[in-house]
């Protein structure tokens, strides 16, 4: 069942979202995300990293990790660590997350509950 938010809570939520998105750290993160999506080298590299990691994980599960796949993953990881667009994206994301944690701490302190824990969907 869909929970209906009161107009007051809806407005306060939207104001929090708008202000978060207008903060320097989130603006930097959004810009870095846009750049990584548009970059002809960074995006395919991230996709290759993700695919290679998935393959190695799959091989680890089945107990037959191939040396060629591990070497390939290391090579991609080295290229990722040298790519300025990816590094800027990773750093901006970490800074945005740190800021979000501060905001969550503020909300939680006022409410007397950890808001993020209540907002988390049960998965395990």
């Amino acid at each position: 069942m869909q929970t209906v938010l009161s107009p007051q809570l809806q407005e306060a939520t939207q104001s929090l979202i708008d202000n978060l998105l207008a903060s320097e750290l989130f603006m930097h993160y959004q810009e870095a995300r846009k750049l990584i999506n548009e970059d002809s080298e960074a995006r395919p590299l991230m996709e290759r990293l993700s695919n290679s990691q998935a393959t190695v994980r799959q091989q680890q599960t089945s107990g037959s990790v191939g040396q060629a796949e591990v070497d390939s993953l290391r090579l991609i990881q080295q290229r990722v660590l040298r790519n300025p667009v990816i590094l800027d994206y990773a750093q901006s994301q970490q800074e945005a997350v740190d800021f979000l944690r501060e905001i969550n701490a503020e909300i939680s302190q006022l409410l007397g509950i950890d808001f993020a824990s209540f907002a988390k969907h049960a998965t395990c």
Partner: protein
Amino acid sequence: MTSTELNELDIATPTVVVAAARDFAASLAETSQFQAFEQAAERFRQDQAAQQAMGAYQEKQIAWRGLIMLNALSAEQRTELESLKNAFVNLPIVEEYFKAQSELATLCQTVGDAISESIGFNYAAACGESCCG
């Protein structure tokens, strides 16, 4: 005025964002779900029978933690633990507390999902501890 200066005017300072977070918390605190949870939590804290039932259940859980993790409880131990758990969770005041907690969680999840969709990553996952250790 340059476009950079205009952009700078559009930036929300950390103080402004914190103020918006406080307004948000105040609005959430005024909801019926939050107030019902606070009242239920207070009744639960003040109820001696509920606290004793919780204590008895938790005591056994701690004492048998190793066996529980290894799934090595005997049939008698399993029955005793189940009985202590039922004696706790079936108390009306505890049921009310869990119901209020669940209703507040549903509200917080709706709000959290709205924030997550807008900011580009999962709010609860970014701020919370992993539930899987």
